[in-house]
């Protein structure tokens, strides 16, 4: 459903992705792990064309989306929960969610709003509060809720557990699993928390220096000696 072929991405002179091939199939949860600076966030953002792949192709539903503007990609059913959440801090919680529904027709919003509020009751209680006044965990929920408002078929999540207390991390992972199972949303998840991520995902990719260095079933990766040494032991 989503596939990247030989994707190269540059940040000015920095060659951040050096020929990435990967694919995500319908209904899957796929995770991408790797050290800081490996290029994980760049990869996730380049799926949405920000930044655009300098070489290589990104295919979505059989369509070449490499050169589409970001908003067109989003309108084809991909949603992004970016690194650092990037909620609109001067807008209210409700407005953040409404903005998330931009890809939809006007009449469809109410139902989605209720669905997101059911998933995150705190957002409902705080809907008139400015986004910037939310706690870190609430902001993460808002970022996920905002992404869900557009009824995506593929949800891209960049380190949703970053900076959250262990109990909240657990909760976020449960919610991701529920979104995948109940709402039939395919998930592509970048995580520092490799152990949690691999337990949740069906498959995983390991990235280093802008390349995919390992790929496989989550179970196999969890058992892999190199993966254990680099990302699991001492880092759980």
């Amino acid at each position, binding site marked *: 459903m989503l596939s990247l072929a030989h994707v190269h991405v540059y940040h000015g002179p920095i060659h951040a992705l050096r020929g990435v091939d990967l694919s995500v199939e319908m209904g899957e949860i796929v995770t991408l792990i790797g050290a800081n600076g490996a290029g994980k966030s760049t990869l996730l953002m380049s799926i949405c064309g920000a930044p655009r792949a300098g070489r290589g192709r990104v295919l979505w539903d059989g369509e070449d989306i490499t050169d589409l503007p970001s908003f067109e990609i*989003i309108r084809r059913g991909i*949603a992004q929960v970016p690194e650092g959440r990037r909620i*609109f801090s001067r807008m209210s919680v409700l407005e953040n969610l409404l*903005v*998330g529904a931009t890809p939809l027709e006007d009449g469809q919003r109410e139902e989605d709003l209720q669905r997101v509020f059911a998933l995150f009751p705190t957002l409902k209680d705080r809907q008139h509060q400015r986004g910037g006044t939310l706690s870190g965990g609430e902001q993460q929920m808002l970022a996920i809720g905002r992404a869900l408002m557009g009824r995506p078929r593929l949800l891209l999540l960049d380190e949703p557990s970053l900076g959250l207390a262990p109990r909240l991390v657990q909760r976020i992972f449960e919610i991701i699993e529920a979104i995948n199972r109940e709402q039939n949303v395919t998930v592509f998840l970048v995580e520092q928390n490799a152990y949690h991520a691999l337990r949740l995902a069906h498959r995983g990719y390991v990235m280093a220096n802008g390349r995919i260095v390992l790929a496989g079933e989550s179970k196999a990766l969890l058992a892999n000696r190199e993966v254990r040494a680099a990302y699991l032991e001492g880092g759980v």
Partner: protein
Amino acid sequence: MGYFLQQLINGVTLGMIYGLVAIGYTMVYGILGMINFAHGEIYMIGAFISILGFILVGLAGITAVPLALIIVLTATMIFTAAYGWSVERVAYRPLRQAPRLAPLISAIGMSIFLQNYVQLSQGAQVKTLPPFIEGGVVLLRDADFAVRISYVQLLIWLLTLVLMAGFAWIIGRTALGRAQRACAEDRVMASLVGINVDRTISLTFVLGAALAAVAGTMVTLYYGVVDFFIGFLAGIKAFTAAVLGGIGSLPGAMLGGLILGLVEAFWSAYFTTEYKDVAAFTILVLVLIFRPTGLLGRPEVEKV
């Protein structure tokens, strides 16, 4: 007392015109973080189009004032908005990824171009319009001084209030307004929720130009004269108003406009008309030195 009241009325009228132009500056700044130096010229073009409109409507034999007014206002807004849109397309969009200085320079170039373009196509003399709406009401008589509000002034007040209400609604309550505010905060993220950022920026220029068009029409009605140079001075004054109110803030732009209009009216009434333009510049300098965030602006965190 009567004299004072009269100056108050004149000042508020002037202030509303500045405020409408100032909104264009503040909106573009809000979304791009840049000053649109061609905006004063857009206002000047609006004034010219409206004068042309009044002449044409007169030639067409439309004498009913409200009808003529609606036709001229609508046409002026549409044509001026097209200019605003073009300024964005030509001077700003191609330079979206360029260093910040580049679009500033191209906007100044655009401003000079528009001035010359109007001068060449309309001639360098002042254009005049015979009084279109005459009369007014006397509010009170104080000794031998009659405080008067003219119908044109009343129209300006009414129109400004309606436009402000409409604007507050667009920015605060509609999808377009939310998209504008989202772009102002984080353009990349706005595109990642599916907002067409380029289109939103275009619409911002269009809206700002439409307001400037109304201001231009009002000036035509109020003073009855227009020349190709008014954009420069009005531009600087409206810009001052935007900075005074807090650049990026819509209520601030209106407040700044009002203050500036009042200062100017009282300055010319009690001191001398000669230096009334200096008042605006003095305010600009003082605000930039002592309170760069303006009256209603929030402290800048990330933008220059």
